[in-house]
């Protein structure tokens, strides 16, 4: 029996959600201990006896038994989930209640509630993402730290503070709550950040980044299964993630070097993800609000469905960037818009757009701003100017892969 990829991480999120239903969110630590115990037991038994035919069911059975033990031992000393208080009191109803908490539909709902709970307005966006990664995706503090390039202590503090806020809320967020709409916006935003952290982050660890994108997509799919959350904006977010993720395999070439969009081997794009993304984007939606997610997804679709750089509809992409600038202006969006302008109107116009970006100070430490200037200077034939810009970009590189790429570009400017 093979071990499916990420089995323990996936099961961690599911089991914690089920156990939280029994123990209450104020006893999240108890739920986590039970899961830890179940995993320890699985390791000891499986490593000698081999992985059972249904590892998830095995883990669930152990977690259920442990949960029963915990409730029996502590029911006089502790209060568990307030809504289950009566049921947990009696032996007659205890076992069925525990069974029910582990039913797949219930686990699904609890994970959703947990997702909404993690996006508590008292937490910063990054803390919300850290908390989701920890509770729903089974990332340890050190793994969260690696994902965000922060110290382990900082990640631990962020997670434990987040858990205090969860516990303070007494119960998980109710999807019927009046605040559902604003919380859903926050959930989408957090998932978007999680995805971007994986897609664009400075972390050199390729495996970590792909995992973050994978988790963002998984949680977004979970969100889409909730009828109230399956709104046009959520579909647009899902589309955006699929279309971007489709290009991930080609972003690093065979030699481990960064490969920019214009040079990517398009045969390495994931065709299935492109199809999935386009289908999400094409979903007929009533009362369509064109959100930033829609526009970003449409841009990603224009790239993902183009056979080559030349076959790309750059004019449509510029228009989409114009609209995106109107809805969600940012210097990074402006930078990408300038690159698209250069593609359809030539490097002079592109450079002009680059140099007139508002709020350009926010790009001061972003290596791809000087790199873009360098690229366009190179196309105009100003080799030495281009070279200088690539060197400034390389000085800002956030990891060895970026540095190698930018230094190579600078080197290429010298060749006639």
């Amino acid at each position: 029996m093979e071990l499916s990829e990420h089995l323990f991480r996936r099961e961690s999120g599911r089991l914690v959600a089920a156990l939280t239903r029994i123990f209450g969110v104020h006893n999240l630590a108890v739920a986590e201990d039970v899961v830890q115990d179940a995993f320890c037991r699985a390791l000891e038994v499986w490593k000698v006896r081999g992985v059972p035919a249904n590892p998830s069911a095995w883990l669930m059975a152990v977690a259920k038994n442990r949960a029963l033990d915990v409730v029996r031992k502590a029911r006089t000393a502790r209060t568990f989930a307030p809504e289950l208080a009566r049921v947990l009191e009696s032996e007659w109803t205890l076992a069925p209640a525990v069974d029910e908490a582990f039913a797949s539909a219930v686990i699904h709902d609890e994970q959703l509630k947990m997702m909404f709970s993690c996006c508590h307005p008292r937490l910063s966006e990054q803390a919300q993402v850290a908390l989701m990664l920890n509770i729903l995706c089974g990332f340890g503090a050190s793994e969260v730290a690696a994902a965000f390039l922060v110290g382990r202590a900082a990640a631990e503090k962020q997670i434990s503070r987040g858990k205090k806020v969860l516990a303070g809320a007494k119960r998980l967020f109710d999807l019927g709550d009046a605040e559902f709409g604003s919380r859903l916006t926050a959930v989408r935003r957090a998932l978007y950040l999680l995805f971007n952290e994986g897609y664009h982050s400075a972390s050199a660890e390729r495996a970590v980044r792909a995992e973050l994108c994978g988790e963002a997509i998984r949680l977004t799919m979970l969100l889409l299964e909730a009828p109230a959350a399956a709104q046009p904006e959520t579909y647009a977010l899902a589309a955006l993630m699929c279309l971007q993720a489709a290009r991930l395999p080609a972003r690093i070439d065979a030699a481990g070097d960064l490969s920019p969009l214009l040079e990517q081997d398009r045969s390495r794009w994931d065709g299935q993800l492109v199809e999935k993304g386009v289908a999400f984007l094409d979903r007929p939606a009533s009362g369509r609000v064109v959100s930033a997610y829609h526009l970003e997804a449409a841009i990603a679709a224009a790239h993902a469905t183009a056979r080559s750089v030349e076959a790309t509809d750059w004019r449509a992409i510029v228009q989409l960037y114009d609209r995106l600038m109107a809805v969600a202006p940012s210097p990074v969006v402006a930078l990408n818009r300038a690159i698209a302008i250069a593609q359809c109107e030539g490097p002079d116009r592109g450079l002009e757009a680059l140099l007139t970006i508002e709020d350009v100070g926010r790009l001061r430490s972003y290596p791809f701003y000087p790199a873009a200037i360098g690229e366009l200077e190179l196309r105009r034939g100003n080799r030495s100017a281009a070279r200088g810009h690539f060197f400034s970009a390389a000085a800002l590189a956030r990891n060895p892969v970026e540095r190698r790429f930018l230094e190579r570009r600078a080197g290429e400017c010298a060749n006639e």
Partner: protein
Amino acid sequence: MTQFLYLYRMTDSARQEAMGTPASAQQSMQRWMTWLSELDAKGHLKDRGQPLERTGKVVRGKNAVTDGPYTEAKDLVGGFTLVEARDIDQAVELSRGCPILDGGGSVEVRPVMKMDF
């Protein structure tokens, strides 16, 4: 070929530590599966053995039955496997790949006594 018993020993804290995060548990599990299947593929695996509970009873003298003296024991036997090897040197060599060694645990290699009659 001689049979050898591998006794896997580990302290409780090292055991918790080895568990770590779900991702590290997964890696640890993967390493065990690889190691045991390699032993098996080379024909050294006689019996996969069994894991053992961490608690039990110890019977001493006539009437003394106590809960396991496990607090005294630095490292507990967490399980065992029966292997076949040419000699103790080879049995030791084969045990070097055991993932428990990465987590501060140990493998005790004991020849099964040969019966001459």
